[in-house]
Every structure is written in C-alpha cells, then in structure tokens.
C-alpha cells in the first residue's frame, strides 16, 4: 500500500481522504483479484477462489448485536427486484440495478460518485421475458464492465463512469435475449455469457479485450465443436438453447476460464428413454448443462464435464460458483448443479466426488460419485408425468445465487431448496421468427414434495465430502447469496426480507434485521478507513421470486416486484 502511494506521487497526508475517492483508485488487475484483498470485493465471487468470504473480523459473533444500518441507496426503477452483487475497491462500492444501471458510491457514506444509465430501446426490452434485472459488474484496468439487456457490453471509466468503449455482441432485437449476468475480468479479457437456456439459440460466451472492447473470441455452448455437433440429432443444434448467464471464474495456474452452461431447449423433451435417437434434440446435447474450461486468451475448449447429458429437466450448470480448494496436497473445484447435487472436480474438471445437498431429488435415482454418471434417469414421453411429481421444481435444488466457503471453519454454506412440480410434457416447435420465443415443452406447476412441505435450508457442510455439520430451515427457500466472514459469521438474506446472521461454527442465530422486502441478490463485506461494512441487495421479483406470492401468500402478496435498495450495515 505504502509503495503504491509513493509511486502515485501523492502526499501521504491526503491518504485518509483519498481512500474513498475513486479519482485515485488503484488499478484492479488479475493479481489483485486473485489475492482477494482484505478490504475489497473485486469480482463477483469475491476472488477467483469463489469463496464469497471476507477475511474481515471487526464485525464478529461477539459484537454483532451492535450492527446497524449505516446507509442505504435507492437505485430506482428496480423492475424485477435488485439482483446485483456489489463490488468494492479502495473504498468505492460499484453495483448495478435493473435496466443495466451502474452506480459508484462512497463506500462509507453512500454518496453517489457517478452513475451511468445506458440508453435502451424500451420496445425491445418490453419483448423480453426475463428482463430487465442485472446481476453485477466487473472491475479491471481502471474500468467497470457491464452487460446490457440489449446485447452490448460497456467499458466505463472507473473514475467518472464515462463510456470508454461499447461493443454490441448479440442481435437482441431478434433473439430477445441480452446480458443480465455479471462479466468476469481476467488477464486483460472481459468474459460474459448471454442469457440462455430456454430460447432457441446457441448460447454464446464472449471474450473481449478489456482495453479496447474488441471481441477476442466467442464460444458457442451449443455445438461449439465438431465433437459437440454430433450430439444434436436432426439439426437440433440450430435451436439448441444453452448459454452461460452467470459468471464463472479464472484459474491462473492453467490459464483457464471455468464456466457453467445453461440447459438445452426445449427444457422438457418427449423422447422417452431413447433420448439418444428420439425426441426434440436427440443426443447428449453438448455443451449444455456442463462445466467447461476455456483458454482465457483464445476461448478454445480445453476440457469439460457434462453434468447432465441430455438435460430433460432444466437442471443446468449455469450456477457460477467454482470453489477452489486444496486438501491433502490435492486441488479441487466445487460446483453446485441446479438439480441439487454438488460436483467436486480436480482442476481439469475430472469428477472426484458428487454429493447431495437436497433431499427431494427424483429426476435421477443417483449420480455415481466416482464417475459423475447419471443412474436411473427419468426421461419423459409426451403427456402427463405420472406420480411422483418431478423433484426438484424448475426453480432447482439450488438457484443461481452463491453459497460461501469459510477457510477458517472449513465449511461450505449453501442454500438448498425442497420443492417439486407437476408436469405435462407437450411437443413444441421452436419459434425463431420474427423474434425468438421461449421453448419450454411442457405445462407445469409447483407442488410440495411427496409427503412433505416446501422449505429451504442453509447447510454447513464439508465441501469435498458433503458431510453436514448443521442446518437451518426456512419456510420458503431463500434466494439470495450467502456471505461468511472471519468474524465467525454467516449471513443469509432471506425471501421474506430478513437478513440473518448465524454463528459460523454452530448455526445459532445471533442477529437479524428486516430490510422490508425480499432478497434475491448479492451480499458482500468490505472496509473503508478501517471500518467494516456489510452490503446487501434487497428487492424481490423475477422468474423464481414471482412464484412466491401465488404459492406462499403471506408477506409475498404485497411485496413489491419493482423496488429495491442497497442496504449497508456497520457497527454503531
């Protein structure tokens, strides 16, 4: 730190003030993100290790009772809620809201340093089914990177918010998808995946030059190689779906981007057991519902594992967490799948273990923990799915928000979701003109698990073996991200609007605060001038949250789905 100040030629006496001034922010580069830093939150998953963990301990299990709201920020027009993961660098907090709005705030006071509201084609936006939420930004090389709903990526000046470059990557007018997920910055490259899954397309992931915005590469998650093309019968690759809508991570040791891919389209297939030759998309449908390793410089596929060959249930691999661990001299990567299983890989994505986070799973009987092979698949034919209902529900055994690994406790804290669905599989035809439309392939409805109730749970588990240490249950599944800290704390922002803090060792609830509306976004911790803050996005709505009012009633009936706030806490 001292060396950097000296190099900048600034008088040290001004340091305290400058710590919260974006005008003098230090450069965020790959090495800095890799190290994670004590005071910052420099990338979506905290660091490339994807721990969603803060080493700060000023706020801890002993003084959490003194945690109070320090400031709030209202981004406005939070249609479908506030789903963003805030980032913090050198005392400045950067985050995005619906309609791809970006804000830079003084991390100590919430004062707006700059904002950028991209000009958007409202008619285009109105045709999109899943919009207009935005899940975050990336930092690097003095810029803030954000994807827009109309298919662009912007490079904004970190100091002023000025647009330094803008690159259009997707024909959103026709494809009706854009960018909602956060980009990842690594080694001079900005990586971002398109919205995808149930839209008939090919699910591209892009790599851009961070300096110029020029496209360096593009990887198609549907039939992106010769090998993959053979896994889509009847030219079904043309409308195969796919995508990579949540940010993955970067492994500097292998120079590889690790990314999770979305499901194929239609979501539900009528192939019956012979899915290799029958149905809407005969074959394994590479590289959908897969984890893939791409060369960061070229986008070349280096290795992959398809978690669900021929995914017929919309239990994709788009969850962006790739938790990088070392144990007994071995290096592991932990990745949760939407179906409710957690996959443990080596750094080349070879399967080392698979364990269950979720109780109610019946799309397969099991997954072989040694090979990752699916055992006892349920492949449907057209018509009503007979008992039992399909478990989990389309919302998944896990949703897209992240869990947290705490290196001090050695535990992985992750939300599991227990719910199921009735299903009536129907043959559909992909619609690609004049605009692409969703291709689901079934009517469906949320129902409780057989013989039980819908609920959610926070588990504290060994990330490699899945051994459970403790569990906390919720009447409705929480949808926000989880944060753990060196202060022996785990924070869970729940769907009803309560932010909970638990003892990281025991799961005992130590503190809670009602933010007034449901959570389904990020939560981070950072420090400014020696003071620790917790920042959480509050604001409900969207493709899963919108199911809560009709299915659960209660507080959800009056909960806004077009509102939100960034709420920031500190000790009194």
């Amino acid at each position, binding site marked *: 730190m001292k060396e950097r100040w000296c190099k900048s030629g600034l008088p040290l006496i001004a340091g305290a003030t400058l710590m919260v001034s974006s005008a003098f922010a230090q450069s965020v580069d790959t090495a800095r993100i890799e190290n994670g830093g004590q005071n910052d939150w420099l990338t979506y998953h905290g660091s490339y290790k994807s721990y969603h963990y803060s080493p700060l301990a000023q706020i801890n299990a002993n003084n959490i009772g003194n945690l109070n709201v320090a400031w709030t920020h209202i981004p406005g027009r939070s249609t479908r809620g506030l789903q963003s993961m805030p980032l913090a660098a050198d005392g400045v907090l950067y985050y995005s809201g619906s309609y791809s709005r970006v804000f830079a705030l003084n991390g100590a006071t919430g004062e707006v340093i700059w904002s950028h509201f991209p000009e958007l084609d409202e008619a285009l936006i109105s045709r999109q*089914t899943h919009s207009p939420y935005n899940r975050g930004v990336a930092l690097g090389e003095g810029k803030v990177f954000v994807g827009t709903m109309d298919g662009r990526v912007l490079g904004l000046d970190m100091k002023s918010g000025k647009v330094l470059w803008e690159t259009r990557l997707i024909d959103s007018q026709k494809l009706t998808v854009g960018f909602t997920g956060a980009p990842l910055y690594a080694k001079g490259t900005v990586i971002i995946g398109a919205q995808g899954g149930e839209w008939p397309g090919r699910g591209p992931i892009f790599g851009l030059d961070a300096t110029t915005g020029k496209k360096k590469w*593009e990887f198609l998650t549907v039939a992106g190689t010769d090998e993959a093309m053979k896994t889509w019968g009847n030219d079904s690759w043309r409308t195969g779906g796919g995508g990579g809508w949540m940010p993955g991570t970067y492994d500097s040791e292998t120079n590889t981007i690790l990314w999770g891919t979305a499901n194929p389209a239609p979501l539900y297939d009528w192939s019956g057991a012979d899915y290799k030759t029958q149905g809407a998309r005969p074959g394994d449908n590479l590289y959908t519902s897969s984890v893939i390793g791409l060369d960061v410089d070229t986008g070349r596929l280096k290795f992959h594992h398809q978690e669900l060959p021929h995914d017929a249930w919309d239990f994709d691999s788009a969850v962006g967490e790739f938790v990088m661990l070392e144990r007994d001299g071995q290096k592991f990567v932990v990745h949760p799948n939407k179906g409710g299983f957690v996959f443990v890989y080596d750094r080349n994505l070879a399967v080392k273990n698979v364990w269950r986070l979720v109780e109610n799973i019946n799309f397969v009987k099991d997954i072989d923990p040694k090979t990752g092979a699916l055992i006892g698949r349920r492949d449907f034919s057209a018509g009503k799915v007979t008992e039992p209902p399909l478990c989990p529900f389309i919302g998944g055994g896990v949703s897209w928000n992240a869990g947290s690994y705490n290196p001090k406790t050695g535990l992985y804290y992750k939300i599991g979701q227990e719910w199921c669905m009735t299903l*009536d599989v129907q043959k559909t035809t992909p619609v690609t003109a004049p605009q692409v439309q969703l291709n689901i392939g079934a009517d469906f409805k949320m129902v409780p698990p057989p013989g039980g109730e819908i609920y959610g749970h926070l588990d504290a588990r060994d990330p490699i073996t899945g051994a459970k240490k403790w569990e906390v249950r919720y009447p409705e599944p929480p949808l926000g991200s989880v944060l753990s800290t060196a202060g022996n704390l785990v924070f869970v922002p729940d769907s009803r609007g309560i932010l909970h803090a638990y003892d990281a060792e025991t799961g005992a609830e130590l503190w809670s605060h009602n933010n007034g509306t449901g959570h389904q976004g990020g939560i981070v911790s950072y420090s400014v001038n020696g003071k620790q803050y917790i920042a959480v996005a509050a604001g409900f709505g969207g493709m899963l949250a919108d199911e809560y009012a009709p299915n659960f009633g209660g507080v959800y009936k009056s909960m806004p789905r077009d509102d939100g706030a960034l709420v920031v806490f500190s000790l009194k």
Partner: protein
Amino acid sequence: MLRDVALQDMELDTLNLHLKKITALLSAVLGASLLYAAPVQAQSATPVPDNGTFDVEQLFAGTCGFCHSAGGRAAGKGPQLMNSPRADDFLHTRIKNGKSGAMPAFGGAFTDAQIDQIVKYIRALKPREG
C-alpha cells in the same frame, strides 16, 4: 419440422450447406453469424408456420406456460387465465403490449387475428382431467 422454421431465408439455407463441410472453428464462427443472418421480416408474423395453423395449446407449452402455470389453469409467475375476470379487449391489449417487468409484449410476434385466437383459447380453458 425444425428446418421449416429455421430456414426461412436463403441466407440460412446456404449457410447450412456450408456448415456441414467446415472445421470446428469455422462452424463456431458461422454459427454465430447465423444468429444475425435473418433480419426481422416485414411480413406478418407466423410463428408456427409448419402446417399453416396457429396452435395455441402448443404456444402455451412452449412460451406462455412458463409464467402461466399448468397451461394457464393456475397462478404462477403470471396470473391464472382460466376463468379470468378480464374482458377480451383487456386480454388482447395485455398480450399485444405486455406489462413492464411482468409480461412481455407479443405485438411484434403475433398478428391481431392470432392474438384473438389466443384470447379464444383462454376463454375455453377447462381443468385437466385426472
């Protein structure tokens, strides 16, 4: 079935022939350009042109049912449509123009006549047997 929908343009047809013969890298590049190759067509929208009919039940299973649960028979992300108290004109306008943050606008995808067919389908919705 897919081909009829996907290859409405000569450009796409031509690209398809080439795609089968080229390397993985080229297929990736051309595949990407396929996404851009078909300009939005000026003529009236015919989203399911396979047999010349407009199959609303299939439309629900493909698109609408993602939000309107059980094919419009139950509330989900979107409201229950079966026995809707809304007037036909309201339903028509909502399908055409959408509702910000809740319902996409389908006016660019369906003609007024097709939207009328959708409304008619909604009016005829009955509980499923079994």
